[in-house]
């Protein structure tokens, strides 16, 4: 399109020297281009890049609780961070949560495949059903699950008691709390993943399945031989998003483990559920040590970048681009 408009411009302005008019036209076009991406570009610079740089700078300083002059202390925050056992615990918990959270990906693929079966009735209802948790505020979701998980009066333990099992205090017991969070996390993310996977499945040409059935492949073979390989770019995308999201887990620790009237720290299961972002919040906003909080944020940034890079590396081994 740009070529044809340039040609048109040259034809009209045949009298003027072609060269200047061409570069003028190009510059005009470039200016337009920049003008159009400016809102997004400026937004990214001001609200993403600038804060990242500020955080990086803050992580080398010691600041007062209300900002003010930051004192440069070099690597002191990082030194403190690497000798703080709480950072290690929080990192391990975060990694464990992230790995377990990936279980949500195959679950979503299976559900998406089932919901895409031809002739299934009430698909719209199922989709709405699965998508509802996505549009519900995480805090509200956590509140509901808090009631479900209640060890003494919760419905889960009530149902278990009917079959003679005495359930644990799911979110107050260090042995179960992290898993309890993973379940809620997967449940919350399922709807979003489903929508993406269903779209992915719909873009797989129908005649592949027809050919496979003619060759005698059953639904399960079709799922593993056609759906999964052709869906692998989508699976890759969701895995990357899921890992990044899990690494940033905060709200479940804050609301499910604690609540408005009690700190998550008063939960005996806190040491096995504290995540790196919760620790960041605690340091930067509760104990007013913004510099140290920034150092933790930088650590998380590095981890996310590295893990994402690794995922992109590995995808060459298993992702098929049709």
């Amino acid at each position, binding site marked *: 399109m740009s070529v044809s408009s340039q040609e048109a411009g040259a034809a009209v302005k045949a009298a003027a020297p072609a060269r200047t008019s061409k570069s003028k036209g190009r510059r005009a076009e470039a200016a337009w281009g920049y003008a159009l991406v400016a809102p997004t570009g400026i937004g990214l610079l001001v609200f993403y890049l600038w804060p990242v740089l500020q955080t990086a700078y803050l992580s080398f300083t010691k600041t007062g609780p209300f*900002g003010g002059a930051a004192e440069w202390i070099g690597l002191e925050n990082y030194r403190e961070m690497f000798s703080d056992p709480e950072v290690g615990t929080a990192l391990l918990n975060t990694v464990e949560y992230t790995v377990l959270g990936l279980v949500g990906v195959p679950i979503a693929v299976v559900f998406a495949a089932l919901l895409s079966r031809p002739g299934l009735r009430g698909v719209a209802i199922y989709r709405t059903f699965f998508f509802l948790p996505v549009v519900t505020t995480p805090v509200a979701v956590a509140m509901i699950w808090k009631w479900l998980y209640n060890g*003494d009066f919760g419905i889960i333990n009530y149902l278990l008691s009917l079959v003679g099992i005495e359930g644990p205090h799911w979110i107050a017991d260090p042995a179960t709390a992290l898993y309890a969070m993973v379940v809620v996390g997967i449940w919350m993310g399922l709807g979003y993943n489903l929508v993406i996977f269903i779209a992915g499945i719909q873009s797989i040409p129908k005649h592949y399945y027809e050919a496979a059935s003619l060759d005698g492949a059953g639904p399960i073979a079709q799922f593993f031989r056609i759906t999964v390989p052709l869906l692998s770019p989508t699976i890759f995308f969701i895995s990357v998003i899921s890992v990044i999201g899990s690494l940033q887990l905060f709200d479940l620790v804050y609301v499910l483990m604690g609540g408005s009237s009690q*700190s998550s720290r008063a939960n005996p299961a806190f040491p096995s559920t504290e995540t790196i972002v919760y620790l960041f919040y605690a340091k930067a906003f*509760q*104990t007013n040590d913004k510099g140290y909080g920034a150092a933790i944020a930088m650590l998380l940034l590095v981890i996310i970048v590295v893990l994402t890079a690794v995922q992109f590396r590995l995808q060459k081994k298993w992702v098929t681009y049709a």
Partner: protein
Amino acid sequence: MAWIGRRAGALLGVAALMMATAACGGGDTGNDDPNAKVTLSYAVWDKNQVPAMQQLATAFTAENPNITIDVQLTPWETYWTKMKAAATGGAAPDVFWMNGPNYQLYATNGVLAPLDEKIAADKVDLSSYPQALIDLYTVEGKHYGLPKDFDTVGLWYNKELFDAAGVGYPDATWTWDTFKQAAAKLTDKSKGQYAIGANLSSAQEYQYNTIFQAGGSVISADGKKAGYADPATIEGLKFWTDLIKDGYSPDLKTMTDTVPLNLFESGKTAMYYGGSWNVAEFTANEYTKTRVAAAPLPKGVKSATVIHGLVNVVSAKSAHPDAAWKFVKFLGGRTAAEQLGKSGVIPAYNGTQAGWAAAHPELNLQAAFLDQVPNAVAYPISRNTAAWQELETTYLTPAWNQQKDVAAAATELAKAMDESLAKE
């Protein structure tokens, strides 16, 4: 391109305009003319008190027609986050509510305007307020606020469960021993009923009181050393961990799932150490409204209750410091206190508190809360209170969860808290 240039120019113009308006938003042009029209922002966090605050604002404007008050409600959950952001940006409200844990942080970092000169010039008598409250809000000998209200802690109890267990109601004669004997009788595991929930999440209502009753301390008077290594302090903590160990309190896991307040409000616990502010809660709750009353806290080595209260403070960056002080002085006066007492909180001005207790004679509030003021100990704070409050919870949780000996946990806490205090 001229077109784009014009557009960009227009955009710049709009942006400049917005910035100019934003700059104006900080307050009307400040000057010293006492008759100039002035609007003060007044930030509060309790929705229930907004009508009373509006009335006070109107009454103040009636006396000072050139000053209007804009009462701004920010819910408790976000109040301090917002305040910290506003203060960091130099845009804190002219006048706002301040509490103990945050006071020194704001006062010593230049967010609050010191009031001593004005207190002296206008001859405001600080002895009109409970001494412990004035102590709480004195930092390096300076005052940055005038008291608004206060609260103390009492023993709330469920009369129905006491009657059923055949235990006499608590009164001023109760000691820790009486309490423990009653606790044994009030616990009935077959019904899932306990004497009390040994709350870990509200030190103000639980640990701090027993620590002071045992003769211990949370923080040294100069705010530099932790008191947790003191054997008396440990006794005060052990009071609660023993209740859990003896089965008179539910374990920490149960209290994590269902907070002690909810256990008390559903008849699962017979007693509740609770602040005077619970009057509103317990008189509104269908279950507790006909069943509860209050008594003074049982005495340990001595009688003690934690006193805390709010002050009204003036922002150091206020464009109208004189008008703001006038308003704070008005709020701290007798007329405002009398008005405030009707809204359900205990006014800080001495001699205006009886009306608060009289509103609910059946709850026995006078004896439980007001008569205890002479025994009151100020809520412990330092410059960065939040930092070691976090440590308190972190280190005491294993003791409450019966995983760790309370003396060992308290000693470790003392060490960590000392390190935190050294950084202040």
